[in-house]
């Protein structure tokens, strides 16, 4: 039972480079989310999706883009990486039919921009 899988686990980028963080879930969840976690700052929502073809901005979307072409996959794109994007990125998903909104998280991607 894989749950939410994120790749890569670690990445170092140079300023101005681009990359895509991959996220896939095998629970047939409609809702998927991308968060970033900075030390002592908790989880900040970057983007979310309520189903294939539908995405929306969260609290901190600047510098990121997403797409949702399938129920399973929700990649996060970083264009023109900046040091401020150094963080740990988590993908999560939930079953939209559950009122309690329990989210299931991947293991995270640690990104450093130097």
């Amino acid at each position, binding site marked *: 039972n894989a749950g939410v899988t994120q790749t890569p686990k670690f990445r170092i980028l140079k300023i101005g480079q681009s990359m895509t963080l991959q996220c896939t879930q095998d629970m047939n969840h409609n809702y998927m989310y991308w968060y970033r976690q900075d030390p002592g700052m908790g*989880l900040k929502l970057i983007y979310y999706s309520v189903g294939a073809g539908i995405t929306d901005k969260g609290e901190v979307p600047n510098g990121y883009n997403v797409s949702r072409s399938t129920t399973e996959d929700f990649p996060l794109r970083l264009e023109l990486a900046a040091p401020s994007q150094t963080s740990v990125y988590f993908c*999560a998903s939930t079953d939209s039919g559950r009122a*309690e909104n329990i*989210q299931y998280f991947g293991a*995270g991607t640690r990104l450093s921009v130097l």
Partner: protein
Amino acid sequence: QKEVEQDPGPLSVPEGAIVSLNCTYSNSAFQYFMWYRQYSRKGPELLMYTYSSGNKEDGRFTAQVDKSSKYISLFIRDSQPSDSATYLCAMSDGSSASKIIFGSGTRLSIRP
């Protein structure tokens, strides 16, 4: 003012102690209250959730919600070294794309 406030700690207690972790919030529309546990270099995992006010117990863990005071707590009895982790409170109003607002997390260390 942040929507959810949580003392970041770190909190260090001896094995076997009772631990109390707390959060306050400002949005009276929150109905669902959750505690996530996050081990070092891992993703958060749901520990407990509570709907509206009241208590919920699961083994050594008890979650309390006081909506009148906008205050939630997590109690850990007979704490074990394996409970050492960061604990994040989280809450939702049950609408708006199932979005959850997280606290900043409290880092807990249980000394053997």
